[in-house]
């Protein structure tokens, strides 16, 4: 792979930095209930009176203790499987009315998405370092897996962006790996998907947005960039449409990160909640015999979640690649991909059958 390591590392670090730094602040401003939950015991006791007993029960295990429904901050959260930090927080008295938990666990609990995101980043770094520590001509198992993955992703991205897309492979590959691992992390017992929080996905989407705009500026130059946003006016009609097209394009550019973030967040939260609800149901159906274990009703949804995690990571990466592609100069990219497609058709040598890879799928309509 002829990639320059210095640049890759910088882009990757930037992405991870943005992803890790921006969660936290945004979100906790958006959920005032959580602040109230940690503010103090006096407030908590105050809120206790306003909560109807049995109003919102978080897990099946809580059902027999109606006095513990004091988690006004939690009542807004959908049911999810408990994770390590949540359990520690609970064990250290974070949810009882009369004890104050230690400061470090409160911090960890509030920033649990950041904690798990960092953990995932650490795991990826360790795996890749392990795979590339001693590079050999005949690769060992870990190096083999890493190389297989990188080569596959390289050809996948080049298939979309065309030749010249090599420089975007590190960023997009990091994005895919990071999101994929974060999605799958929720299926590990005692862990949580950081992408099931809006902060993490918003941070990723914002970093993609900034990268795409920067790419556009760098490739087009400031003047052509603004012209591109105005819809590339060519003639008088085009220039007359500029007052309409410019706000339209600006709004659509701003809508891209919102839709990216919400899509990933909604899908991963949805699958985690689904697993949480069915795990709770599995415990609830055996609750009347006081069984220590439940029925694993959530098993099929774990398989579904495996599939969805991969697909959503792929979709996020694919859409980022397409946003980058839209920012690149149209004429150059178009000519290059056409040339490649023509070469592919020549190389295929399919006499008799009309193999139309060059984009004219419409010829099939007449059959």
């Amino acid at each position, binding site marked *: 792979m002829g990639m320059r390591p210095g640049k890759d590392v910088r882009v990757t670090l930037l992405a991870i930095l943005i992803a890790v730094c921006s969660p936290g602040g945004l979100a906790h401003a958006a959920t005032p209930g959580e602040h109230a939950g940690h503010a103090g015991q006096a407030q908590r006791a105050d809120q206790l009176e306003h909560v109807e007993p049995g109003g919102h029960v978080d897990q099946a295990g809580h059902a027999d203790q109606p006095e513990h429904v004091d988690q006004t901050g939690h009542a807004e959260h*959908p049911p999810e499987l408990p994770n390590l930090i949540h359990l520690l927080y609970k064990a250290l008295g974070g949810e009882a009315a009369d004890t104050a938990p230690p400061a470090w666990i409160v911090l960890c609990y509030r920033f649990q998405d950041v904690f798990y995101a960092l953990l995932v980043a650490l795991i990826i770094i360790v795996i890749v370092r392990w795979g590339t520590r001693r590079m050999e001509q005949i690769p060992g198992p870990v190096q083999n897996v890493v190389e297989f993955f990188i080569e596959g992703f390289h050809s996948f991205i080049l298939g979309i962006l065309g030749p010249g897309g090599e420089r975007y492979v590190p960023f997009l590959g990091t994005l895919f790996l990071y999101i994929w691992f974060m999605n799958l992390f929720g299926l590990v017992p005692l862990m949580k998907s950081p992408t099931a929080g809006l902060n993490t996905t918003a941070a990723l989407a914002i970093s993609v947005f900034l990268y795409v705009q920067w790419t556009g500026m760098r490739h087009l130059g400031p003047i052509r960039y603004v012209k591109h946003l105005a819809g590339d006016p060519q003639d008088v009609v085009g220039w007359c449409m500029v007052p309409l097209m410019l706000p339209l394009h600006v709004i659509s550019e701003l809508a891209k990160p919102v839709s990216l973030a919400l*899509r990933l967040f909604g899908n991963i939260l949805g699958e985690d909640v689904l697993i949480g609800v069915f795990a709770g149901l599995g415990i609830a159906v055996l609750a009347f015999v006081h069984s220590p274990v439940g029925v694993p009703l959530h098993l099929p949804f774990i398989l579904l979640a495996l599939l969805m995690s991969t697909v959503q990571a792929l979709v996020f990466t*694919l*859409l980022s690649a397409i946003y980058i592609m839209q920012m690149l100069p149209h004429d150059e990219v178009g000519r290059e991909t056409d040339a490649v497609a023509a070469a592919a058709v020549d190389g295929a040598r399919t006499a008799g059958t009309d193999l139309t890879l060059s984009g004219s*799928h419409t010829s*099939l309509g007449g*059959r």
Partner: protein
Amino acid sequence: MEAATALGFALPIGLGLAALGSGLGLGRAISAAMEAMGRQPEAADKIQVAMIIGAAFIEALTIYAFVSVFVLSAKI
């Protein structure tokens, strides 16, 4: 009708309607993609990528409804 009661009725029905629309859209999109792949297996990779992107856009509409249901379900 109280606001909470109205929300309690409206949220599941709204989510169901959004899912219905997405389901119809996904059905059309994927059947067309399958047909295209069947006619032209050589281009299956390209069609599949385009199909996944399209499916993501269609599915996003249901996800927006799902997110707003979660946001609003705190008010019930």
